């Protein structure tokens, strides 16, 4: 004979405001097997928990039903209470009478009725609960970090400093990411390279960090604590073990193409490093442009390389590494503003993107840090358009968070280096970080002209001869109500940060969710901002949403802390609610094998049945749903448990 204790939570007025909790407790006392039923203001509080412990002891309860909030909130809390009192933690059932009842019901009588149904179903179900063991598996101490921008570098360094090996995978031939392209950083105006390069070097030389540059993750299998990752190394056509990075090959290569790193403003060779401070500072050959690969001739690099490091026969190769956790730090793309035809990007040469401006402003960039127009002259007037593609339902609804600040930084740099007027066309000035408002005031005092209104369009239609060849920004200054046409020489579009174009594929590979804006979805927007729905996989930086550098670094360190805490504990509790297959019933059809996302099901040809490897099973239940004979069952969600719950819900 079961002895069930039923505990009904008031949750302040959250539940008790709609449902008569005392009457509900009274109802519970009339249900089969119920030995005790109580209501209490806050069941999750220590006195509430203590009441359950006491009842288990004194009344010999062997099952507990808590009618309260969603099991997402406190299922773990009450399982622990059960365990501490000597009964199996899975002898608990939560009836969600808050999110699914009091909060969503308008009519108190209806809510009461529903609460009674839910409670009765929970009682019927808990009777059929079976004890499940707690299981732990070893956590592989190494960590994979995907993406070598500032987020990936920071996370890798934190983990390596914590004493664990890190595999840092970067798609390009050098780590550094977007930050390596920036000139100065707001609001302190540190030189981006000056603060980033030491970190890049530290990551490149750390004995516990293995850099996998010019590489991509080809496959991920396994689960928290035990991931197996296949890394595909793209052919560089340069033997990096022999290469000393002397640079002679780059000097001798005759082929010049627009440089991606310089955002098309400068040229690079067909054999090239990304930039002089690249880590590792070894070149790769760009097959699409190399004269040898396209025409079968040249080989200048090979001829001049004293180390004999050029290897045109190199092929892509794969490497498998085992890790305990993964940090995804794949960053963002800058939106291509040419789709917004009204701003003329691509049509007017002096309409540029922020990264183009950064390269122009950089002393190491193609103009040596001088702000110049396409014809080499200095601009007299510059317009910066805020919110290009951000806060715009036609493109991205969200605020990109960094544009206001870098726009102000641009104004500062322009005022510092030229005598140009700088016009900001903004809708709201969002300067919310530490020292940001102060920076805004500083740039205002430096003479930036602030126009509160979104630019309606940019034309090249000068009205007078002195406007010939200039650009005209049309906007309303909404604060004065005046319509403006502002002739300028250079327009910088503060374009939106958007999810990487391959975010969909990355999400699938790592089993990540994506939010409506397309960025990777964190487990909880406030309380679990680096965790994901996949245990052991964490997010760092702008792949989760637009961030500035300080926020990115903080986010990355948080992700590193998550990986470190897994690694340092060395063990992780794995799901007890796993599936199992009854070999007596299994017909060996292997439908479940094909469906299992965790690859946890193996087929045993001799016995002609399939078997679930409990350590790999994530408890998703796909096998149980697909198995027609019911041979596969998900523990704690077995057919008899669910059907009895439904029966009780439907029954009077």
């Amino acid at each position, binding site marked *: 004979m079961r002895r069930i204790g039923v505990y009904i939570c008031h949750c302040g007025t959250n539940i008790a405001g709609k449902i008569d909790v005392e009457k509900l407790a009274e109802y519970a006392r009339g249900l089969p097997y119920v030995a005790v039923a109580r209501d209490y203001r806050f069941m999750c509080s220590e006195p509430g928990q203590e009441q359950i412990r006491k009842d288990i002891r004194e009344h010999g309860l062997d099952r507990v039903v808590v009618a309260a909030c969603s099991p997402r909130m406190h299922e773990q809390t009450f399982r622990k209470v059960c365990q501490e009192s000597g009964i199996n933690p899975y002898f608990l059932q939560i009836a969600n009478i808050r999110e699914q009842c009091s909060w969503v019901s308008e009519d108190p009588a209806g809510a009461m009725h529903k609460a009674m149904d839910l409670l009765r179903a929970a009682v019927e179900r808990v009777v059929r609960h079976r004890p499940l063991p707690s299981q732990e598996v070893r956590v592989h101490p190494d960590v994979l970090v995907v993406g070598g921008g500032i987020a990936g570098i920071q996370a890798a360094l934190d983990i390596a400093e914590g004493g664990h090996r890190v595999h840092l995978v970067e798609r390009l031939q050098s780590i550094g990411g977007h930050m390596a392209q920036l000139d100065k950083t707001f609001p302190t105006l540190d030189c981006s390279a000056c603060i980033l390069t030491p970190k890049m070097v530290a990551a490149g030389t750390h004995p516990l960090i293995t850099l996998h540059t010019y590489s991509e993750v080809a496959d991920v299998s396994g689960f928290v604590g035990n991931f197996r990752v296949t890394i595909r190394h793209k052919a560089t056509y340069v033997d990096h073990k022999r290469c000393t990075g002397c640079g002679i090959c780059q000097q001798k290569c005759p082929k010049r193409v627009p440089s991606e790193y310089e955002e098309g403003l400068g040229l690079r060779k067909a054999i090239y490093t990304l930039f002089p401070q690249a880590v590792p500072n070894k070149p790769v050959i760009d097959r699409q442009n190399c004269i040898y690969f396209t025409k079968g001739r040249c080989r200048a690099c090979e001829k001049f390389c004293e180390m004999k490091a050029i290897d045109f026969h190199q092929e892509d190769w794969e490497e498998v590494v085992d890790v305990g956790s993964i940090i995804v730090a794949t960053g963002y793309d800058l939106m291509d503003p040419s789709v917004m035809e*009204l701003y003329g990007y691509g049509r007017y040469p002096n309409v540029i993107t922020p990264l183009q401006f950064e390269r122009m402003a950089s002393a190491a960039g193609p103009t040596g840090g001088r702000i110049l127009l396409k014809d080499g002259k200095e601009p007299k007037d510059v317009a910066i358009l805020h*919110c290009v593609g951000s*806060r*715009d*339902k*036609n493109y991205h609804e969200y605020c990109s968070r960094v544009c206001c600040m870098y726009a102000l930084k641009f104004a500062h740099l322009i005022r510092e280096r030229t005598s140009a007027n700088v016009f900001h066309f903004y*809708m*709201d000035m969002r300067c919310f970080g530490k020292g940001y408002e102060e920076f805004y005031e500083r740039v205002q005092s430096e003479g930036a002209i602030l126009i*509160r*209104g*979104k*630019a*309606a*369009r940019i034309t090249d239609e000068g009205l007078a001869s002195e406007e010939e060849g200039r650009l005209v920004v*049309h*906007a*309303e*200054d*909404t604060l004065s*109500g005046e*319509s*403006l046409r502002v002739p300028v020489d250079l327009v910088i579009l503060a374009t939106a940060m958007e999810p990487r174009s391959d975010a969909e594929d990355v999400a699938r590979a790592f089993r990540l969710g994506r939010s409506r804006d397309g960025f990777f979805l964190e487990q909880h927007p406030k309380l679990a901002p680096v965790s994901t729905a996949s245990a052991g996989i964490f997010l760092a930086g702008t792949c989760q949403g637009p961030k500035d550098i300080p926020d990115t670094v903080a986010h990355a360190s948080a992700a590193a802390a998550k990986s470190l805490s897994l690694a340092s504990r060395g063990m992780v509790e794995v799901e007890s609610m796993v599936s199992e297959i009854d070999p007596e019933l299994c017909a060996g059809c292997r439908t479940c094998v094909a469906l299992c996302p965790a690859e946890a099901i193996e087929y045993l040809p001799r016995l002609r049945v399939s078997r679930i490897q409990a350590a790999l099973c994530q408890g998703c239940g796909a096998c149980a749903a697909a198995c027609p004979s019911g041979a596969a069952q998900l523990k704690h969600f077995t057919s008899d448990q669910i059907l009895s719950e439904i029966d009780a819900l439907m029954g009077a």
Partner: protein
Amino acid sequence: MDAQRNDPSPAVEMGEGRMMDEGELDFGFAQEVSAEPGGEGIVKCFACGSCSAGCPVRRFHPTFNPRRIIRMVLLGMRDAVLRDPFVWLCATCFTCQERCPQGVRIADLMRALKNLALRSGNMPEGIPMQVNLLREKGTLYPLDEFDNKKRTKAGLPPLPGAHEDVGVLLGDLADLGRPKEE
């Protein structure tokens, strides 16, 4: 020849420093407008002004300003919006609507405001005549025998002068001859 200008009424001349009394405002007005077809998006406006900046009427008319009209609706200035001729100034050119970052269907919204204004009797003089023509003939330019003769001369087929069934369709339209009493 003289071209008539509909100058703004005092209600629109908010002017600097004029104090609006809360009692003059109807805070349900925005909801009422957003219930009209086309008015749905109005509450999303964040007043960036890209509508006004591109508006061709705004360039030539002293007070017409779509951003400000939206603000007036959101603020509940019902009488000022519905009694003034300015809602009729929108050219329905869709320039603003195409560019609005918030997806406010500004041209449709102006259409909805015209519908509302008309219900309280505010409309240009020509409207009742147009409605009557459509009700009686189904076309704004009914063809008579003389017209069809000219058409024939130009090598064009003659066309019917009226479409009676249109009147049946428009039977529910209020008689616009006299403004409704408030």
